[in-house]
């Protein structure tokens, strides 16, 4: 069971990294507009 939890946690982390970066790129676009 702990192994399954670890796997799910790692999936959440890596999916989170992807989503966070794309969100950052959207903010970056907003920043570019106002530069």
């Amino acid at each position, binding site marked *: 069971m702990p192994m399954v939890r670890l*796997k799910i946690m*790692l*999936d959440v*982390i*890596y*999916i989170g*990294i*992807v*989503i966070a*970066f*794309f969100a950052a*790129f*959207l903010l*970056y*676009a*907003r920043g*570019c*507009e106002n*530069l």
Partner: protein
Amino acid sequence: MNSHQWLELAVYIAALVLVTKPLGLYINRVLNPAGRTWLDPVLRPLENLTYRVLGVNPAREHDWKQYAFAMLLFSLVSCLFTYAILRLQDILPLNPQHLGALSQHLAFNTAVSFTTNTNWQSYGGESTMSYLSQMVALAIQNFFSAAVGIAVAGALVRGIARHTAQTIGNFWVDLTRIIYYLLLPICLVLALFFVSQGMIQNFKPYTAARLIEPQTVSVPKTDANGKPVVDAQGNPVMVNQTLDTQTIVQGPMASQMAIKMLGTNGGGYTNANATHPFENPTPLSNFFQMLALLCIGSAMTYHLGRETKNQKHGWAVWSAMFAMFLAGVLVCWWAEARGNPIHQQLGVAAADGNLEGKEVRFGIFDSALFATVTTDASCGAVNSMHDSFTPVGGLVPMFNIQTGEVIFGGVGAGLYGMLIFVILAVFIAGLMVGRTPEYLGKKIEAYDVKMTLLAFVILAFIILGFTAWASVSNWGTSSLANQGPHGLSEMLYAYTSGAGNNGSAFAGLNANTPWWDTTLGIDMLLGRFGMIVPLLALAGSLARKKIVPASVGTFPVTGVTFVVLLVGTVILVGALTFLPALTLGPIVEHLLMLKGTLF
């Protein structure tokens, strides 16, 4: 450097020139939603159906922010989709080898890699990917990421060509038309051609062939958990293993190889990539793979000229690209043909130049040409191991990527990368004559230069930053197969390849660790979208501008002077940014090699 090889180079260049105009005209029609092509009777109904299903109004264009949002949303969804397929491949169909799911860090790296058109591979395809993963996760992503690159270049060219306009096109329309009208038809023909050359395309399980002469090899002993057993000194315990069978890869290879080359993706079906006899069966397949790599990048310059109604400008940009291409090929070829002086002193292959790491079917010239072409484009395909090149031979592909892969470049990415340098060149020329810089009738103002520099600086920042981090951390250096300047070159190449969305590997680096997979994944994301976003902002800014009539102070963007200035800008900016790092890597390695030291 014999006459046959010179002749092949001449034929390759002639083919590239011949394909540029017709393909450029075709791309121009594809990137114009009202453009008519000979495929309209078949594809127009499918195109309209796609818009209806997606709920897209093709007549409604986007401003640059809407275009960027749509592009980012599409890339995010396709990245997560790829990640899911790779993580679930063990329970999904079309997996006759019963290959397991990828680890989280490898799935992250691979999903990002194929979304960003990088196709860096921290894995061996034939031992890692199921047929479903190859076709649904990777091959489809090859089409998507290539189409995104061409769409962004198309939007930037529209921004340059239009005046007093608020919009730069509709991302969904561009994406659909590029995939349906450009990539799919050419890939269909190319895949059939590859099959005719002997490339495989099937769903059979891998073939086990009995060896005529069984081989005994020494392999590390493993415990019940599959971990290496070490002795008291910490060295791995080796045992002899007799091999009497060979596993021969099968699968849907040709369909993936066509887009791999045309879309400048480069992700190999097999770990050996284009050195594998199935993946690159004949000299003719090798030639057309190289031609497929640069044809769209070359044709995009014709589209630029056509769209801006200044065909001479398109050819001037092409000429600058060609000059750098030829210089790179000749330097790389010369360095490899000259070989390693230490090998020559030892009497090893003295007459053959440097054949280490090269597929003998292709030899030195085709390896040097392929290495130059694949790194001129943002392609990760290789038909030789760049790690085994001489220091100067290996410097050429690395420098090609570091200049932003603007020498024809990746599909779309090459043109939008080169347009950064065009704006910089025009800006520098403006500064030199003390006039406001103009580009095709548009005044280049502070905002435009800021966006241009943002797009360029991100590459330098992440390549040098990540390489510096890797070179001082145990996470980074523990994966190296070589120490000294060659080890630095391996790390520098990896982050250069990732940020430049190239994907070719220098080899000698075990990148399938959580740290390398994660940092390279972030490197690829920043290199792709950190560059595209300010470029779309630049497109929006240029589209809004008015056209001002040319005056005596206007710097001409055609002719030899412009070509020389453009080439000079690319080389100077690239050299000033990366020369210190290159000096510590391949350049010092070359000097030490001349003194008799190898790494």
